[in-house]
């Protein structure tokens, strides 16, 4: 029993000090991965964009929220381009050209997404029609009403 406890403790200790098997690289981060732009207006622009770009490896986080190396590299690239005067939407388009709509969190109207926008409007319209029939039904809709 004691031996078993010792073994468990020892292996726990090993786990704690052992180097991680899946190590990321040890390179210094890209210049603007963790550093804000000097111009607060440009930094605000960059942050707004970064909050709506998906991290490619930790796919449920934005690159603004992620600690992943590639997210840092993406942040640095976004900040450098904004510092150089590029339009945030142009940077978004540049990434969409490479990774598809998936990389952007900004909802867009496209062939596959239009039902999402159309459905609420259609349902509202249906509700209005049904309610009208119900409330005016006594006189006008007598013939066709259910």
């Amino acid at each position, binding site marked *: 029993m004691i031996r078993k406890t010792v073994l468990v403790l020892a292996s726990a200790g090993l786990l704690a000090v052992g180097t991680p098997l899946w190590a990321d690289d040890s390179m210094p981060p*890209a210049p603007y991965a963790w550093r804000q732009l000097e111009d607060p207006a440009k930094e605000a622009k960059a942050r707004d964009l970064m909050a709506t770009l998906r991290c*490619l490896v930790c796919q449920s986080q934005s690159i603004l929220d992620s600690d992943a190396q*590639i997210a840092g590299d993406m942040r640095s*690239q976004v900040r450098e381009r904004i510092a150089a005067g590029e339009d945030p939407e142009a940077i978004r388009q540049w990434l969409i*050209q490479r990774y598809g709509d998936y990389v952007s969190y900004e909802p867009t109207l496209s062939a596959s997404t239009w039902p999402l926008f159309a459905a609420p409007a259609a349902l509202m319209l249906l509700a209005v029609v049904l309610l009208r029939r119900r409330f005016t039904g006594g006189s006008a809709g*007598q013939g066709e009403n259910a």
Partner: protein
Amino acid sequence: MMAGDEKPRAPRWTLWLPLALFGLFVVLVVVGLVRPKDTTIESHMIGKPLPVFALRAAADGRPGVATTDLATGKPQLLNIFASWCIPCRAEAPVLGELAAKGVVINGIAIRDRREDLATFLKDLGNPYQRIGADDVSSVQLAIGSAGVPETFVIDGKGVIRYQHIGDIRPDQIPLILQKLKEAEQ
């Protein structure tokens, strides 16, 4: 209301309409739940020319990689890898086999330290004719690669023709050779 005789009722089947719609919704949810999650992000650059880049050499004895090196009239492989990436270790012998078959392989080392890369190449062999150092993943982002390892087939004109996501397994060698052949046309 007394309704009844003069007021024609809606056909009986409409009674089942809400249930049917609900059933449809349930089917949609279940299909979404059961379908295995696919987290691969494919590059949308396939069929487009390589972006312009020029990377410095990442290792001694091998030059760096530039766009112009990849448009030489003959299809080549562009392998995105790193010494810190475990699947890349598994892939190294397979790349060696491809190189032995005469395939030209260009490497792009992502965020790699020179000494780590040298050890990696010493331990696992060097199938690369050129290795460029991409310290801030800029070329990786420019070609729409989302991770390591990934391998791109580039045709003789420098156009990206195929993307292989993940390590190339031994049984996928024929697939890569076939994609290289297709890129000749």
